């Protein structure tokens, strides 16, 4: 059933301070609304339970990409289109650009935002595994002030986030420390364009002489939120890439993931394909590889 429009409010505050005041004065009443690519779908389906929203789309304080020697900072309302066309992101953070290009179509990429993707907190979000392996930090702001938090610990359960009801995500900061790492990502979906992921991987590694010196792995659609796989990483560190290592990595990964059956896939398929994606990454960067994939 379609939504009853007079029940819904969408305020357009003139600036960030005004938006934060609305949030502070009536905690829990207002929720942020970014580009609308998720919330408008719920609205039309009659499933948008919350009724009062604050539009962040037009706020200049939440836009723009700024660069220092150490980091690159994206305003929360940076769109997927802006991510993909930014030369430094293309060069140093290709996994984020790739994920942005996988998300919906051009029309969706022109409206979908990185901040919105984080706050929507879908386990299937394409850009979030990339933010995990790049060890992003989030700037949370409220009328009380601003604080930076690590993105690693931000998603605490299905659609649960470590932020307060009067806070907004203002910016996402990516440390420029992984340029020399091997970078890899892949999405498995029903169709190349538009489809929501069945499973996706983002991976960074430092590999020399077939030995894994360091590795960061994150997956989408295999847990209640995007998941950094620290236990699998621990199994792989300092190991040579061979059949035994890949076998151990698959076992560790299977123990770490908690996929479910849903409309897009099954838990069994997701577990198997996640293992294949990891094996593909390792094998593609190792030598003398014979394993039966």
């Amino acid at each position: 059933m379609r939504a009853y429009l007079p029940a819904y409010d969408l305020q357009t505050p003139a600036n960030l301070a005004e938006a934060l005041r609305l949030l502070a004065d009536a905690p829990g009443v207002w929720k942020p609304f970014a580009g609308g690519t998720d919330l408008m779908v719920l609205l039309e389906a009659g499933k948008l339970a919350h009724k009062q929203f604050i539009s962040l789309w037009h706020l200049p304080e939440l836009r723009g990409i700024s660069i220092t020697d150490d980091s690159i900072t994206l305003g929360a309302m940076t769109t997927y289109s802006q991510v993909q066309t930014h030369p430094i992101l293309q060069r140093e953070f290709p996994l984020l650009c790739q994920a942005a290009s996988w998300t919906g179509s051009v029309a969706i990429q022109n409206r979908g935002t990185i901040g919105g993707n984080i706050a929507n907190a879908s386990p299937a979000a394409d850009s979030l595994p990339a933010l995990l392996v790049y060890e992003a930090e989030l700037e949370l702001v409220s009328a009380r002030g601003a604080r930076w938090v690590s993105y690693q610990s931000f998603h605490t359960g299905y659609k649960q986030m470590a932020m307060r009801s009067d806070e907004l995500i203002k910016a996402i900061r990516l440390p420029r420390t992984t340029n020399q790492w091997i970078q890899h990502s892949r999405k498995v979906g029903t169709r190349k364009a538009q489809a929501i992921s069945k499973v996706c991987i983002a991976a960074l590694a430092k590999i020399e002489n077939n030995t894994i010196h360091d590795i960061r792995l994150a997956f989408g659609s295999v847990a209640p939120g995007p998941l950094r796989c620290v236990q699998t990483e621990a199994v792989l560190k300092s190991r040579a890439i061979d059949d035994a290592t890949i076998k151990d990595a698959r076992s560790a990964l299977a123990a770490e993931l908690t996929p479910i059956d849903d409309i897009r896939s099954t838990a069994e398929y997701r577990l198997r394909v996640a293992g294949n994606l990891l094996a593909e990454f390792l094998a593609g960067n190792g030598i003398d590889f014979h394993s039966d994939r």
Partner: protein
Amino acid sequence: MTIEKITIDCTVNHTAHSIRAYPMARLLDVLREGLRLTGMKEGCGEGECGACSVLLNGELVNSCLVPVAQVSGANITTIEGIAAGDQLHAVQQSFLTHGGAQCGICTPGMVLAAISLLERNPNPTEADVRTGLAGNLCRCTGYMKIFAAVVEACQK
């Protein structure tokens, strides 16, 4: 709680409009029912099909996913604003020449997606064309003639 309608000032096809609507009303409905611009269609209503495509400040968007409160001051172009009088846009002419339309439901969105692509990338490869139009579904499945029309349009 009942929310009042708000007034949104914006430009649609080079004409200034002052629109009264509920803040969460879809741009699609406001344009089709309020301004009678019925070229864009509602296909899926969830951003999968592209039949409701318009250009919002020059960028391709799905009008079913844009709440009207977010278009204050915006410049909107619908398929009705693409031709200059009887003079068709090169992309429209190319769709005609190549028979890039069957039932026609997807055509306004296809044309706008193609125009948006050619503005960003004047010399697209066929792969670029497929990516640029990936958000526009043709359920008559007449894709090959549509791709041919877009490839030819950029050669002009």
